[in-house]
């Protein structure tokens, strides 16, 4: 008697738990759909019936909270701005576009959750994720689902290893190699030092290729010192080594927040080499409580400068500032170009929103190597079938608090 009651209680509890959770999951997403590859086909078929006229759905993923929030927000905002512009101008092939951004907290696992949330929403194309690790993790899922993935800023080599994954930015190896070639061609510096973040795949990826190319070019690297994300406040040891080695150029393939500390600490120890950064350096002029005059003469390779005076950039920067209250960085520009690239590819193939995500993906994979767009990050942006972009590298130096093209 007692036993049966206990079993009944257990059954009730287990069912209740599962039901509550499932209900929870269902309620947040009215358009419930089964997982797996079949779902995308169903969604594609169901959309026109439900909505009347079709809507393209573009998702974006990035860290909106936590350490990398600045990058993720830029990607989501940049892509949103592009979508709003496209909608205002009549949409893609006459169809409106819907945009939704999800948070991944700079965590591969959460990024996969964000991807699945967007899939439930009915995403047909993804502009994201923002960071390399997350992009690699999500590209596994996107490959299984055959959903088109265009990462604005996933720089690691493996981000585009699948044929349905493309990127807007240069890869890490490309950045490292180009930096070394540029230094050797222009003859800036005689002795070189590198300070990089060995715990960050972006930074160590650039360093590796820079190191290889520097040796090929015969550049003399006097010190290559690493730090990790746990010890990224005090750089005096690394700077001291560079100074003792007599380096007159310090290569910083790192993000701008650490770079600002390095510039400050180098000035404090009266060490004034030329600093050279990559695209992660973009944003250094926006660091708070930082004497931006220290950046004078800093050289950086970044695809985008908010100070550029071409019409497109000026209007982008103005709209972005109006809507989000800050100066856009290269993440926002990459994402903005990404959305326009999708638009160009969709128009080239005459796609419609009632097609399944998988069919759209297959068509976009064909279209991408054929299109060329004019964007914020390049005047002629085109792609290889491998997923890598073809564009000219842009190198700026900071003069008088502004980016000046080199």
């Amino acid at each position, binding site marked *: 008697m*007692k036993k049966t*009651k*206990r*079993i009944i209680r*257990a*059954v009730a509890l*287990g*069912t209740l*738990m*599962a*039901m509550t*959770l*499932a209900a*929870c*999951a*269902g309620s*947040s*997403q009215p358009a*419930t*759909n*089964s*997982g*797996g590859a079949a*779902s995308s086909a169903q969604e594609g078929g169901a959309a026109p019936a439900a909505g009347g006229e079709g809507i393209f759905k573009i998702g974006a993923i990035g860290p*909106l*909270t*936590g350490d990398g929030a600045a990058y993720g927000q830029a990607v989501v905002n940049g892509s949103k701005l592009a979508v709003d512009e496209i909608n205002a101008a009549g949409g893609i092939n006459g169809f409106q576009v819907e945009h939704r951004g*999800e*948070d991944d907290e*700079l*965590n*591969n*696992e959460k990024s*996969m*959750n*964000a991807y*699945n*949330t967007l*899939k*439930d929403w009915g995403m047909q194309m993804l502009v994201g994720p923002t*960071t*390399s*690790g997350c992009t*690699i*993790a999500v590209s*596994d899922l996107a490959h299984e689902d055959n959903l088109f993935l265009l990462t604005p800023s996933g720089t690691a080599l*493996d981000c585009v290893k699948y044929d349905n994954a493309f990127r807007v930015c240069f890869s890490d190896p490309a950045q490292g190699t180009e930096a070394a070639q540029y230094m050797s061609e222009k003859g800036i510096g005689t002795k070189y030092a590198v300070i990089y*973040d*060995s*715990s*960050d*795949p972006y*930074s*160590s990826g650039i*360093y*590796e290729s820079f*190191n290889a190319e520097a040796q090929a070019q015969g550049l003399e690297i006097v010190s290559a010192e690493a730090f*990790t*994300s*746990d010890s990224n406040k005090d750089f005096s040891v690394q700077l001291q080594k560079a100074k003792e080695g007599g380096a007159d150029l310090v290569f910083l393939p790192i993000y701008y927040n650490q770079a600002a500390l390095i510039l400050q600490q180098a000035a404090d120890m009266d060490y004034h080499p030329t600093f050279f950064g990559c695209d992660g350096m973009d944003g250094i002029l926006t660091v708070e409580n930082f004497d931006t005059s220290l950046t004078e003469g800093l050289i950086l390779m970044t695809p985008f400068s908010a100070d550029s005076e071409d019409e497109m950039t000026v209007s982008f920067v103005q709209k972005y500032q109006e809507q989000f209250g800050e100066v856009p960085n290269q993440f926002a520009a990459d994402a903005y170009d990404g959305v326009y690239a999708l638009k160009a590819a969709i128009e080239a193939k005459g796609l419609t929103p009632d097609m399944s995500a998988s069919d759209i993906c297959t068509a976009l994979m064909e279209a991408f190597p054929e299109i060329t767009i004019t964007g914020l990050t390049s005047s002629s942006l085109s792609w290889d079938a491998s997923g890598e972009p073809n564009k000219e590298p842009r190198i700026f130096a900071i003069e008088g608090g502004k980016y000046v093209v080199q």
Partner: protein
Amino acid sequence: MKKKLPEKYGFLFVIFLFWLVLTLLSRAGMLTSHFSSLLVPMTYYAIAAVALNLCVGILGELSIGHAGFMCIGAFSSAIFSLLTRQILPGGVRFFLAFVVGILFAALFGFLIGIPVLRLKGDYLAIVTLAFGEIIKNILQAVYLGVDADGVHIALNMTDFRLSPDGITLIKGAQGVSGTPRDSSFTVAVIVLLLSLIIVQNLIDSRDGRAIMSIRDNRIAAEATGIHVTHYKMLAFTISAAIAGAAGVLFSHNVTTMTNISNYFGYNASIMLLVYVVLGGIGNIRGSVVAAMILYLLPEMMRGLNRYRMLIYAIVLILMMLFNWAPALVALRKKLWQRIRDRRPAVGKEA
């Protein structure tokens, strides 16, 4: 004794039903893909919480490096799977990956236990914290690969001379990628059930009583002739092994492990501790429920956008108050009592 059996296994039955219902719903296509993707992580965090509760609640030693054992399980099994990907069929490979991951985690638990478990109280917490950080930092720096010449290990890319046809296993900060996605909800639930059975039986056994006596009064336990270090090692190693199993599920679910400080760093260990504390220290079932709820909560609140993490923090505080504030504890007891009092009457009617 006979009466105790269903009580002890009742919770396993609840989990089984939980699995059954969700699997049926998933088969019927009633779960969103977001929700289905949360099932596996939710389960492995529950497993890790059970492991940590064995250490914190039953053995009474505060460990804040348990994510380190998860990390060892995750990396060793991922390396095994990468190496045998071409040779072994999926099922066998995944089973062996579990064996490898659990053995490595247990081995490290044992090795670390030797010096560490002779320490008392806060010292153990400090050393486990350091251990977790060491594991994380080594794995972030090391390059490991295999080719025709044998195994290559290096601490930077220039010293790492792997022939092009070799297999890169760990690539420094770029981590491990390409692990097969073998984890499924079913496997995860089986592992959770097994670890619950192991922990429950350990607690009820003679060894378990010895372990808890050390927790309650070390001097008295020693005086009764209990070999304190032996039992501490036993519990700590089992705890590490179970955490390793959770790590295996992790690495075969998230196939790319970069930026590992997010999942295996100090914060991750503290997160596991939060699951254990909110579920009730020493309450194994509570850990499972707390881990599942707390993992799902921020994901379910995605609709709240940027307020989500703020609200999550507030929920944590409220849960803590609900569980431990004296006034609320008294209120809860009163409610329980009322339900208990009513129950016999309901039984008679039925």
